[in-house]
Every structure is written in structure tokens, then in C-alpha cells.
């Protein structure tokens, strides 16, 4: 308990805020992307932007596992539940992501699909053991942090000789997504996304270590500071980034030394590479097809691969036309740039994936930050919308 408060202490925050204010140069702006949804959430939840000088802008990155899931992948999960009649186990956030035909996993559940919300893949294993006459599929999503537990589960199922358990693997990789953003025309040529540095992920880095980021620092001349998920970690990382920019450095620094080492968790890495291999390409919502950016289950464990087991064929589906999730995930647009933000698209009725998870940029802004839009632009009449929202 002590631990939690220690990293949120308002006094320390004030000190850091003063240090950042003293460090920024009056003649320039600082645009930093927090890659990770966990950071996006912390920044909004604790009101971090209120403590930053006006010249420091935080851009939300694509590191929200639910947000980057393309519609086609959710469709596969729905098909498994409705057509193949499996018990589909999924993390709670995923059930509300809009899919094709006005469906979502939640609506598929209402239509009779046996869809169960679980907190961990071990729950899915248990469901499989308890229901030997049913097939159970775990809808595995997430970045490097959630991959090792999935690997463990597959090995466990293998060891137990389980016949009714498989995994719909949608695990994705952080470094490939960062590369994709840095390679995107907006960043490289058009300059519409002025990016001065990254806050590197916390938990992901405990697994992969800090070394993978060295490439970005060198190749693209962008500083990276790996930071923990506490708001004070984020403030400290921003201070370190501002200093790097001012001094013309582009290095990988580690604010999160209490958990992240250069090499990461080798045991977990070995486990993952034992069970998974790179996919040649994987579609991300917002980023499109990104080469070598996701994992699939190795041949050796094919019987636990739902895609092989049920001969699933991936079909890409275009996002809702009005939805700007893609541009938001790449940092090109802000939630308020989307025409349907807050009127058609709300957390109760999400049109895009960024409005679903609390780590999504749109949901975070809607839930924690929309009072600022009113302060910025008093003419904008959002009151009627808010009022009607209240009576839902």
C-alpha cells in the first residue's frame, strides 16, 4: 500500500513539475509519444498534463492491446463462438469492441454464443478442464507482457494432453509498431507528427529489456525513456526526455530501473520463442499490415492453434468511415479531431476501438479530460450532448 502512494505523491509531483518548467526552452515545443496504453491511462487518470508547461505535448501512441485489434480478428472470435460452438474465453475489455454486422463479442454472447470473460489464461485452462465435452478457445491478445502466460498455458495444455483447448493468437510486438510509426510518411516526410521522443513501455520492457529500443535512438535519432506506470514515473521520464532534447542527445534511458534491465527476462523470452514464431505480416487497426509484427503458434503446437484447428481464414474489414482511430493510433490526430467523438461515439456506444478500453486515447479523453474541451472552447455547445448522455 505504501508502495502505491509513494509513487503518486503530490509534493514530489510539484517538484518535478517545477524542474520540467525550468528545463524547457522558451523557443521550442516538445512533442513526446507515450507508446503504451498504460501510460495514456495514467496521464489522464492523474491529470498529468495540468502539471506540464504548455510547450510540452503528450501524443498517445498505439500501445493499447484492445485498440490495435482489427475488426477481422474480432470477427474470427465471434465466428468461433457462434458457428463453431466453442466456449470463447476473452479479457473483459475485448467484449465491447465493435466488429462486423453491428456485432461485438458482447452482442454475440446475447445471441447465444458461450463467451466468458476471464482475467487470465489460466482461467481458460480451468474452464477447459471443467468442460471436457466442449471445445474451449482462448482469445489471446496483447503485447509482450501477456505473451509469456499464453506460452505457459499452451505448454501446460500440451503436458496434460488436453484435447479441447486452443488459442486464437493475436499477440503483437512493440518494437515493430514503433518502427512502423517512425517509418510512416507523416513522421518521415510530411512532418505532420512532430515527434521528439518516446516514453517506452513499462511492463513490456521488463520482458524484452531496454536493448530493443537502442535501434530507434540510433537510427531515427529519437530519445527513448523507459518509464514505470505510476504518474511520477511519467513525470520523471518527461523531464529526462526534455533534457535529452535540449542537449541534442538521442539515447535510451531507463527511468524504470526498479524493474527493467537491458536484456529483460531471458527465461520468458525463451519460453515465448519455444512456443511462438514471427508472423510474416499482421494487420493492426490504424497501422494496417505491419511486417513481422505479431506472433503465431509454432507447428509443434499446431493442435493448440485455433486458426489451424478450425481452418480460420482471416478477412480484413475496413473500419467505420467516420472513425479516425487509425490516425489517432499513429499520433496524427487527436480524439477531438474525430467528428463523431462524444456525440455518436461514446464509451456506452463505441464506434471505434479507441473508445473501448480505458487505455484507448478516445476513451481516456472522454472519461477523464473532456472538461478541458469546454474550457478551451466555450462556444462549443456540448451541454445538450452531455445531458442526453446522462439519461441513457
Amino acid at each position, binding site marked *: *500500500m505504501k508502495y*502505491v*502512494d509513494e509513487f*503518486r*505523491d*503530490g509534493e514530489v*509531483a*510539484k517538484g518535478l*513539475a517545477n524542474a520540467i518548467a525550468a528545463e524547457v526552452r522558451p523557443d521550442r515545443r516538445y512533442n513526446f509519444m507515450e507508446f503504451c496504453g498504460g501510460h495514456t491511462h495514467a496521464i*489522464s*487518470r*492523474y*491529470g*498529468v*498534463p*495540468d*502539471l506540464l508547461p504548455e510547450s510540452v505535448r503528450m501524443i498517445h501512441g498505439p500501445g493499447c492491446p484492445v485498440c490495435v485489434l482489427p475488426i477481422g480478428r474480432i470477427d474470427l472470435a465471434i465466428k468461433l463462438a457462434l458457428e463453431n460452438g466453442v466456449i470463447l474465453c476473452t479479457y473483459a475489455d475485448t467484449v*465491447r469492441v465493435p466488429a462486423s454486422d453491428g456485432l461485438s463479442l*458482447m452482442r454475440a454472447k446475447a445471441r447465444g454464443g458461450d463467451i466468458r470473460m476471464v*482475467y487470465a489464461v489460466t482461467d481458460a485452462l480451468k474452464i477447459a478442464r471443467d468442460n471436457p465435452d466442449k471445445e474451449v478457445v482462448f482469445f489471446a491478445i496483447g503485447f509482450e507482457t501477456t505473451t509469456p502466460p499464453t506460452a505457459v498455458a499452451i505448454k501446460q495444455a500440451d503436458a496434460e494432453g488436453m484435447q479441447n483447448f486452443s488459442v486464437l493468437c493475436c499477440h503483437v510486438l512493440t518494437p515493430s509498431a514503433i518502427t512502423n510509426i517512425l517509418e510512416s510518411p507523416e513522421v518521415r516526410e510530411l512532418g505532420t507528427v512532430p515527434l521528439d521522443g518516446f516514453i517506452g513501455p513499462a511492463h513490456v520492457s521488463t520482458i524484452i529489456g531496454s536493448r530493443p529500443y537502442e535501434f530507434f535512438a540510433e537510427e531515427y535519432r529519437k530519445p527513448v525513456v523507459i518509464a514505470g506506470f505510476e*504518474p*511520477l514515473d511519467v513525470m520523471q521520464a518527461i523531464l529526462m526526455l526534455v533534457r535529452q532534447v535540449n542537449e541534442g542527445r538521442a539515447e535510451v534511458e531507463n527511468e524504470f530501473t526498479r524493474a527493467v534491465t537491458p536484456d529483460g527476462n531471458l527465461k520468458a523470452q525463451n519460453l515465448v520463442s519455444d512456443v511462438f514464431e514471427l508472423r510474416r505480416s499482421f494487420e493492426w487497426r490504424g497501422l494496417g499490415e505491419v511486417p513481422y509484427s505479431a506472433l503465431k503458434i509454432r507447428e509443434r503446437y499446431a493442435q493448440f492453434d485455433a486458426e489451424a484447428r478450425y481452418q480460420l481464414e482471416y478477412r480484413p474489414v475496413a473500419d467505420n468511415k467516420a472513425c479516425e482511430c487509425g490516425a489517432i493510433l499513429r499520433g496524427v490526430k487527436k480524439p477531438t479531431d474525430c467528428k463523431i467523438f462524444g456525440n455518436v461515439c*461514446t*464509451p*456506452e456506444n463505441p464506434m471505434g476501438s479507441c473508445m473501448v478500453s*480505458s487505455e484507448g486515447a478516445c*476513451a481516456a479523453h*472522454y*472519461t*477523464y*479530460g*473532456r*472538461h478541458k474541451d*469546454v474550457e478551451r472552447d466555450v462556444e462549443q455547445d*456540448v*451541454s445538450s450532448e*452531455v*445531458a442526453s448522455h*446522462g*439519461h441513457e
Partner: protein
Amino acid sequence: MTSPVKKGYTRPLDLKHGRVDMSHGGGGRAMVQLMTDLFAKHLGNEYLAQGNDGTWLPACNGRLVVSTDSHVVSPLFFPGGDIGGLSVHGTVNDVAVMGATPLYLTAGFILEEGFPLADLARIVESMAQAAAEAGVKLVAGDTKVVEQGKGDGVFITTTGIGFLADGIHLSGDLAQPGDVLLVSGTVGDHGMAIMSKRENLSFDAPILSDSASLNGLTAAMLASGAAIRVMRDPTRGGLAATINEIAHQSGVGIHLEEAAIPVQPAVEAACELLGLDPLNIANEGKLIAICAAEDADRLLAAMRAHPQGQQAVIIGKVVEDANAFVQMKTRFGGRRMVDWLSGEQLPRIC
């Protein structure tokens, strides 16, 4: 010679190993037996004893308050309470925060075939205890049995009736800019007690549900003479949902101080672990009140003098805001909105 026709013999209810079966809802002898041997035994009183399709109640010279609530909590027995007590507390509190004195309850039970009678007995006893503590009488009841797999043990719907004294008028649309907002104690206890049980989280001290009747506390608050405008018990959706409802009903903004909101350390830690916000977590034994600023001290003193309000604090104030936004100064020093939660954070908590 004695008559060969033996006196009708009914086996007593087997409260140790017996289970609910379809006959318990069938309207026959088994149902009557369940009624008399279990429900009437624990919950009986002069009104229930009338034994008719309806119950007459004495005339009451004034306004009545009615509230109804269904309870579907899972697990049925949780740290600090069970569905029986909860079904009384929840409804008593809905009546009490209207400023009324709860008097009567009705209860409808939906039982699942196969449910152990021993568990049902525990639930009924717990209801009886909660009703006695709150000073309310169960005046009507109903039991139905559904086939195995069509229910989840027990569902209980209760309706509460209370008497509202003249001159008391509390309503969610009465908050005015300048008013202050108080909470009677720590938030998030009930929801996290359920959740920690479901997720098998263990802490040094288990998190206990705060499930309790609040009519003693509300009576003390009303007796203080403070100009109370609104009282609510922040159940499902937690503090965040309740405060947003009031802001919208009254057309005002509400500003909270995160540092002032009491949260038990274990609840805070559990929320942290599960990625939840204590402000969204249900309470079953806490209330919030909004009163005129000049009466805040008096009300606070009255709350603190009551065992259920010892940890009462002022946590915010009402401001003018056409958008009816609820905002909070975070402990970190920033400011953010406090919104309704979308979707179900914790299903089946009450």
C-alpha cells in the same frame, strides 16, 4: 378400536442435507411446509400471520415511500455478508435515504432446484437478523422454484415501504452551487469484498463488505436539523455514478478532492491489482449527503457521532456548471473528470 386412518405425517424439512425441489414451488404441501418451517419461523410477525393473498396494514397518516430492488449477487455468501442481509439492507437504505423511516418489507424468492436447504436457512436467518436490526417487518412474500440451470441458487427481490414525516423533502435535483458533499465512510468495500473473493485475492486482513442498514444514521442526520438537500446510497456504479446522477438531476457541477475520499488500504491495493477505480466500486453501507455549506459542520458532527458515520468527511462542493461535469483534483495535483463507468465493471455484485 382406533381408526385405521393415520394422522397425516409430514417429514420435517431436512435442513441439513435437503435440497430445494420443484415441489417447493408447486403450491402443494411441500411449499406450505417450506413457508411455515423456514420463512415464517424466522421472519414471522402479526402481519405475515394473516396468511391471506394480501396483507392489510394499518393506516398511516402521511406520505409513504416505496422502493424495490432485486438481488442477484454471486457468490451468495461473501466476506462480511450474504444475499439475505444484503436484500434487506439494500432496500431499507433506498427508503432511508429518502428521509423516510422504513417500516415494512416484502420479499420474492426465486430458488433454483437443487439448492441446499441449509444454505437457504442461513440466508433466511440473515434476513431476519437484518430486518430486526433495521426495525422493519416482512409483511408479504412469495417463492418460486425454477429448474436446475435456470437460476443461480437464489434471487431475492425486496420491496420496502417507509413513512415520510411532514416537512422532509430530499431529492437529487435540489443540489445548489455552494453546497458541500459529504460521504459517511470508506468507499468501495462491498464491491471489492465480492471481487477479492471471486478472484481469490488474499490480503492480510480480508476485505469485508460494508453491507448494513443505514436508517439509524439517516435518522440521526435528519435530527441534526441541518438543511440536507440530497441523500443517496452509492451502490452499483459507486460514488462516481451517484454523484454524476445528482449533478445531472440538479444541473450543477460537482468538484471532488481525491485526497479527502476515504478508501481502505486493502481496497486501494486490490483496485490497483485489478486495474479498477474505487470511485466506481459499489457500496452497500455508505451514503453521501449534500447540504448547505453553513450546515456542513453540524451535519458532519451528527454523522461522526453515529457508529456508522465515524469516518464521515467532506469530499467536495457543488459549483455552477451548465455541463454538469463532475471533476476531481487528483492527489497528484492534476484535475480530471469523474465519469460514469461504461459497461459492466463488476457484474452480479448486488
